[in-house]
């Protein structure tokens, strides 16, 4: 196996795992609450600025994790309370509301930080040598962290008491209420978890990309493609969607070029919308 081929294979793994983590928050909120949070990318952006703020002050990069947790959590709390809660079960209204929110967050970031690119210094520079190839250390760590986060969430959702109650709420909200599950609070918690996940995704990618107010748009687009393919309401769907979209994009980009990679993603997304609008695992 040629070293270049191996690196491209790791690139595919990197593309899929990081995409899955970046989509997770959106998928949680959309799949579980039926709220399409257009501002998802802006929460990623907020997380990235947290990483910038921490490192610009000379503090260790890892401090960005608790900072993003607090900032995106509080933001999620307020947004859920004033914007989302009055609009549950009104999908179009939440779409418009979160779209407005995305503009607001972008403009706020622009007002605070300006439009200029910010760069976050890589917390782990250099490459690691293994199996005869060199691969950037930070990206390898990201792959590992992404897999851990996904696995942890998967296990937690499937077996914890709260995970089970969320599934109960999603499947049958009336019955969940009858059994004493405080659905409003649980939904708020789920929304906040989604925004926090987005923020942590932002912290993760911040050292790799230009940090700027518009960066969220990049993530929300790919995230929607993943949801289109993966369908709603299952962690497995997110993984399948991220695998299909991230994998196809990475593989075609590696084999031909980025334009064909993007083209393939668009075609697949359109085919899914057309032929399997409920996603890959939809059962009739």
């Amino acid at each position, binding site marked *: 196996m040629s070293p270049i081929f191996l690196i491209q294979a790791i690139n595919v793994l990197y593309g899929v795992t990081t995409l899955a983590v970046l989509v997770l928050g959106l998928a949680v909120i959309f799949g579980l609450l039926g709220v399409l949070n257009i501002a998802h990318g802006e929460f990623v952006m907020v997380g990235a600025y947290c990483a910038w703020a921490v490192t610009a002050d000379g503090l260790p990069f890892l401090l960005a994790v608790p900072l993003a947790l607090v900032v995106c959590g509080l933001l999620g709390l307020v947004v859920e309370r004033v914007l989302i809660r009055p609009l549950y079960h009104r999908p179009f209204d939440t779409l418009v509301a979160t779209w407005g929110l995305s503009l607001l967050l972008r403009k706020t970031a622009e007002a605070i930080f300006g439009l200029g690119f910010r760069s976050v210094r890589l917390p782990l520079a250099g490459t690691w040598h293994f199996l005869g190839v060199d691969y950037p250390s930070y990206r390898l760590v990201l792959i590992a962290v992404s897999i851990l986060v996904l696995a942890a969430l998967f296990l937690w959702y499937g077996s914890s008491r709260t995970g089970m109650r969320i*599934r109960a709420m999603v499947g049958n909200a009336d*019955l969940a209420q009858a059994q004493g599950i405080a659905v409003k609070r649980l939904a708020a918690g789920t929304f906040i978890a989604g925004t926090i996940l987005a923020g942590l995704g932002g912290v993760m990618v911040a050292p790799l990309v230009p940090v700027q107010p518009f960066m969220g748009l990049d993530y929300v687009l790919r995230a929607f493609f993943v949801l289109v393919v993966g369908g709603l309401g299952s962690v497995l769907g997110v993984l399948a969607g991220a695998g299909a979209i991230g994998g196809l994009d990475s593989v075609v980009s590696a084999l031909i070029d980025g334009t064909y990679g993007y083209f393939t993603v668009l075609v697949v997304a359109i085919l899914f919308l057309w032929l399997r609008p409920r996603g890959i695992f939809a059962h009739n």
Partner: protein
Amino acid sequence: MTGQRSAPAPAAQDPAPAPGLVFEAVEGGYGSATVVRGLSGMAAPGEVLCVLGRNGVGKSTLMKLLLGYIPCLAGRVLLDGRPLDRLDPPARRRRGITYCPQERPVFDDLSVRDNLTLMRHDRTLAAFAPYFARFPILERRLNQHAGTLSGGEKKILSIVRGLSEEERVVLLDEPSEGVQWENILHMAELIAERKAKGVAFIVVEQNLAFAERIADRYLVMDQGKSVLAGPRAEIGRDAILAHLHV
């Protein structure tokens, strides 16, 4: 100390509040359509109130009013004399009201086991042995998704879950729908056992034979109103049937 001594004072002034679940002249519905109009009734501890009536006369709507899914436009609901008006369904559950709905009675996406243990602190099946003795089918299907059960099996799962909560008030909406007669009899036994321990029931039913086995009082509804109400002993089968069939 002084607080403790003065506590019983209000009871001396008011007549003792009626225990159990009481609803007084409740009204409500969906949007601009009022479905339930001025209904009153009660289930005292150790008593079963059977709500009868044809399809679409507002029986399930009455349940939703009692549980707080939809607001009462008029009248009020009291538990042991305390009004429940401002409480949402989870809060009423915490006050001690169990509910087994007619539609979608179980969590289809959860296993039978998870359906039973979802809200149990110990998350074990220890408390279910007496129920499994009556409904062995449940024990055999513990690891199956509840969505794969038949309609009648879901009803059984639902009532077992509800009764196992061991609360003071239980609301059942058509518990016998789709259930085999043999299992309906088991349900009736279970209800009788709980009743003997002082539990108050309100049961919406279409199945008169089942209702006759469990009811202490009847409330027969038509077009959202009470058309016949009173103790079982005072209401004959023919009078009820006159309202159940057109």
